[in-house]
């Protein structure tokens, strides 16, 4: 079971409290996890990655096991601790704005 922690506003949008737990088919990567997340919560489509290009939205980052995967290819394998659920994938919104 893979764990994902979303920013406050995306949890509110999807009606999620706490972290998300997902069954992910195949190797754990940012892409496979987001695919599973969006299938469960379709209202999140377009809010994390652009609907057309599939690129990460500029003001979001993907952190896992104290590493920044934001600029890696979406299919880059994530650490085993993510695949096993020992550690969560963090989708982090920029701490900025008024």
């Amino acid at each position: 079971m893979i764990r994902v922690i979303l920013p406050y506003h995306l949890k509110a949008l999807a009606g999620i409290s706490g972290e998300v737990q997902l069954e992910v088919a195949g190797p754990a990567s940012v892409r496979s996890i987001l695919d599973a997340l969006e299938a469960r919560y379709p209202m999140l489509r377009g809010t994390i990655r652009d609907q057309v290009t599939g690129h990460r939205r500029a003001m979001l980052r993907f952190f896992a096991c104290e590493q920044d995967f934001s600029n890696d290819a979406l299919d880059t394998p994530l650490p085993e601790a993510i695949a096993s659920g020992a550690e969560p994938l963090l989708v982090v919104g920029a701490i900025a704005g008024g």
Partner: protein
Amino acid sequence: MSGIRVLVGTRKGGFILTSDGSRKKWSVSGPHFAGWEIYHMKASPVDSNRIFASQSSGWFGQVMQRSDDGGKTWNTPGSSPEELLSPDGMPKGESNKFVYDTSSQTGKPLTTHLWYDGSQHPWEFKRVWHIEPSRDNPDTAYAGVEDAALFRTTDGGKSWHELPGLRGHGTGSKWQPGAGGMCLHTILFDPTNPKRIYVAISAAGAFRTDDGGATWKPINRGLKSPYLPEPTPEIGFCVHRLALHPSRPNVVFMQLHQGGGVYRSDNAGDQWVEVNGNLPTDFGFPIDVHAHEADTVYAVPMDPNLRVPPEGKLRVYRSRTGGNDWEPLARGLPQENCYVNVLRDAMSVDSLDPCGVYFGTNGGQVYASADGGDNWTAIVRDLPAVLSVEAQTLP
């Protein structure tokens, strides 16, 4: 007694203000979608409980929301628990998807417009500025978006598809953003002619279709922009707002950027005439028409350099003659130390008699007049900056 619902979009969420027909006591619900920018909310004219909302964020992009119970609960269309159970299978989150149509089958594959540095820049979707639900079908609505284009849903907002003939108009590559972005912010229907739609784009100008959206023509003749090298081009005008009275849809009023001011067309936009008359300035954002008097028009002039009320006095101006002769309406509005602005989608009228007029400010006040503008009171004073105000008259 019928009631009024005022749908208020702000920088930090949506608010719904409700009252009975007396419009004296108001209740406030919200913030809906707290923390998100709500550019616009508008109800279907044929189903008063169906409200569309544009929810957006610089972090998370565009989300479209719909309520079918008058704003009590909301869903991204196609994603409600009931719809998840539909035989169509899993929804795909298409309600949030706005993809420009560049196919050769439906329109010219236009992909770039003029950028600030004179180069061509790709069309990039940013947000929905305005939603205009159909006058006769609750599942149909139009969305004006940034970068400027017109989209339509015919399935209640589950999916949106561009009407590419507008962007594909021959001038599209010359459209250029204003300081607020290149947005399509006004959509007006002609109630006597379902094939005719007016739209306005900053800073491209006004356009009209007479064939239901397949083809469009610029309608900017007579406008002037003295700050442009060529003062009367076919396009390039920073139109702030259009308004018309449904009983006389060939007469259209416009608030143009400074250097222009308030204009009127008596022939569906084919020719415009400036009607600033005795207005104190030629700058403002909103313009609207009284619900029962086709020649009664409201504008909110601002200092053209500061974009705040002249002399620190917040005044709505009313013309009962379709322009040129204007009277200030100040009773109940702050007449000293007032430096707020009123944005283009932040004024609306109800259809009760006497007509109610409403506007919101970027200082968070929403003002209401239940007597056509003679007297004003603040329904709320401390909301986030107001982006849009829509008055809905309930049956």
